[in-house]
């Protein structure tokens, strides 16, 4: 059996799944339930100067009958008294000494406040700190959260303040509300951070109530931009993670991957792209803590199948497989193939190709079932038909190289090779 043990900056947990700093980690009662369910660790809900939340806080994007494929919130950091939070953290640490306890922090924007927060936090015996440079709403207006993360100079300065007094590992949580996460990550590293985590939420408007015309969530007839997370943000998070993992100066800094992780497969993907462990928020909020069972079980079975003994065996393995466009092999060519035995004649491949792609599928009308076949010479290998096909492995993409040699765009252009004529 694979070993799911995780060691992130020396912080040990029985599995690489932590709950991200958010409502699931807001109180002792939640965190105890999470640990009982089997979560490896928690990043406690962000502490700072106590705030007041509004009512009506979340909204979601539903798609094709699936609820909350994207999730949005306008909550602030913890609205509970600091002392209560710290007391509860101590209590949980005593009850579950084998789980990771990280405290998320967002102090007021001065050195003294940060020093105080850091000291109070490490006094609890917590194993690490996470600096919240990402919250995109509410705190930003006060010059905190994403306002810090979006300005590398400020970010670096704040990390420096923290490192002056920190005695436990410090993770800096980056904001995705930037065109690139790299400058912020580098700034944090220059400031001395031990690790990084990303992503926090992405600014969003999830929708509008078409009766009242008020966007969601509706706070007494008004709304604000919220922070977007959940399955919909995974691809964005993976991309940002990869940019960090590929950056020379960040390569040796452990990264905690966050953003839309719902299944063990998502988690494996984050880890393949360089995350040493992962954090989850929305999936737990939507389905409860029990999801940890399959997160662990699924990852463990996959590791057994692939022969990975520990999680470090596969972290980062996919990073080198994402390259620059110019380096792709133009001689690599695939064409779609429809398995007529599996085809259910829904015509989705045909209409998507015909209306929006390369008119590469032939139709032979029948009653009631049409027959669809690929025009191989027209097919550019775009995958659209395979994507829309409702039957697994009914459409496969078959390799038909255009030439034996590896030939990239730079070379192609240099040789003046021909472009399409239609």
């Amino acid at each position, binding site marked *: 059996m694979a070993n799911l043990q995780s060691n992130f900056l020396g912080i040990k947990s029985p599995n690489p799944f932590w709950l991200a700093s958010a409502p699931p980690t807001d109180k002792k009662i939640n965190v105890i339930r999470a640990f009982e369910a089997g979560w490896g660790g928690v990043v406690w809900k962000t502490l700072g100067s106590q705030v007041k939340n509004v009512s009506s806080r979340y909204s979601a994007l539903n798609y094709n009958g699936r609820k909350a494929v994207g999730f949005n919130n306008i909550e602030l950091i913890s609205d509970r008294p600091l002392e209560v939070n710290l007391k509860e953290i101590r209590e949980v640490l005593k009850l579950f000494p084998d789980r990771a306890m990280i405290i998320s922090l967002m102090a007021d924007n001065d050195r003294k406040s940060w020093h105080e927060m850091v000291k109070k936090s490490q006094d609890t015996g917590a194993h690490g700190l996470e600096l919240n440079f990402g919250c995109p709403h509410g705190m930003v207006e006060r010059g905190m959260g994403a306002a810090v993360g979006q300005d590398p100079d400020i970010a670096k300065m704040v990390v420096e303040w923290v490192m002056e007094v920190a005695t436990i590992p410090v993770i800096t949580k980056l904001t995705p509300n930037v065109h690139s996460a790299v400058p912020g990550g580098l700034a944090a590293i220059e400031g001395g951070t031990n690790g990084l985590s990303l992503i926090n939420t992405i600014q969003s408007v999830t929708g509008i109530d078409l009766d009242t015309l008020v966007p969601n969530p509706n706070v007494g007839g008004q709304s604000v931009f919220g922070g977007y997370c959940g399955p919909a943000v995974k691809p964005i998070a993976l991309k940002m993670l990869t940019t960090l993992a590929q950056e020379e100066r960040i390569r040796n800094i452990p990264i905690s991957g966050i953003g839309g992780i719902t299944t063990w497969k998502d988690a494996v993907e984050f880890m393949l792209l360089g995350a040493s462990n992962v954090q989850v928020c929305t999936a737990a909020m939507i389905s409860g803590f029990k999801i940890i069972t399959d997160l662990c079980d699924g990852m463990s079975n996959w590791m057994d199948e692939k022969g990975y003994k520990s999680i470090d065996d596969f972290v980062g393995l996919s990073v080198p497989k994402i390259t620059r466009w110019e380096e792709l092999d133009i001689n690599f060519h695939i064409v779609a193939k429809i398995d007529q035995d599996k085809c259910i004649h*829904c015509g989705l491949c045909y209409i998507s190709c015909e209306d929006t792609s390369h008119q590469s599928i032939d139709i032979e*009308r029948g009653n009631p079932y049409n027959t669809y076949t690929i025009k191989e010479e027209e097919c550019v290998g775009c995958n659209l038909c395979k994507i829309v096909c409702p039957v697994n492995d009914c459409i496969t993409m078959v390799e038909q190289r255009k030439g034996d040699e590896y030939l990239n765009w730079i070379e192609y252009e240099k040789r003046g090779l021909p472009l399409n004529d239609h």
Partner: protein
Amino acid sequence: MPIQNNRLSTEDLALKFADVHPPFEHAEGAAIEADRCINCYDAPCTKSCPTSIDVPLFIKQISSGNIKGSAKTILSSNIMGGGCSKVCPVEKLCEGACVYNLLGEEPISIAKLQRYSAEKAIKGKWELFERKPSNGKKVAVIGAGPAGLACAHALSLQGVEVTVFEKEEKGGGLMTYGVAAYKVTPEFCKEEVDFILSIGGIDVQYKKELGKDITLAELQQKYDAVFLGIGVGIARSLDIPGEELDGVVDAISFIYELRTNDFSKIAVGDNVAVIGMGMTAIDAATQSKRLGAKDVTLIYRRTENEKPCTEVELDLAKLDGCSFIWLASPKEIIGENGKVKKLVCNKMKLGEPDTSGRRAPVDTGETFTMDVDMVIKAAGQIPFEELINKSSVQNKSGKISINNKTETNLKGVFAGGDSVNGGKEVVDAVQAGKDGAKGILQYLGV
């Protein structure tokens, strides 16, 4: 116990005749089912619907919350889309063609979704259609059944003034008087007819019978065109001794009684034999059973493989506790004091395929006798041959002949529905009515 009515309590009857295909109780149910639809291109369901309802479109409109658009999509292809959602044998039409069948999955509940939208439109009296201003053309439609009503609606939509002549006192044709009571209620049938007529421009004259109160020649004179949607008549006779006995009834009349009276007033026997295995036979059998008959046996000349009803209908009869005798054909009904007592049947075997392509039943010479007190004849219906001949309309054994523009041999006289096809489904009759209207509009130059 002999043939008698009032076998069950009112509550029992209500339960037995409750909706066989209940609707979605919640919007969520409809939405979940609608979202299962993968929205096929050139959809097999649509192609398998005689009225070509754009099924993927109306289902996606349910998904998107555009119920009004969904109802319009359904009803503009099939003005009886509400009724059809309850009575269509969808297992051999849209749902039978659903691509999910090919995955071994349950097909999309197209009928149930269709009912969801169409029933809302009918109950809510939504004004989905706007009639064009009158163009002064006048058309007479004979029969307010699915064919006649569909034709009238399509004509009126284009500004034609339509007068419908109907021999009964209610519209809907066999939808109102024939279809099983557990599929549609009289109230629904009335609402549906009212909905169709709400477009305006259609004057229905009830209790006016062609051949009795009016003649075709008169109508040809008074109107710019005539559409015949008179359906077919009563059940075919068995032509065997004993058919005149008390207790031998025609399925169509039996069901007509059942659809027009209180269930408690309808008499059934203890041991009922139903002759035939079509939709009408199944309906007569299941409804006899539901009225409280002890034993109901369906008797059919061929085997289960050749049965004209669908598997779903057969299952319905099985679940109702009906019995089946395959390869048997009635030979004689024996009576006592003028009342049915026994049914003698010939045992049959399958021979060579006949014109229908099915293997023909051949008499083996052996017989068997069963005790019965009621025999319901449901071996096909006979067209109004006499009336049609009297009006000089060309026909084949009473089935009206039409050309590809739905016109009969008489200029300006069109026809469609059961009276032409000899008896199919409501949905076929609706399409025939639409086709008739198209032919008439062309003929009128509208």
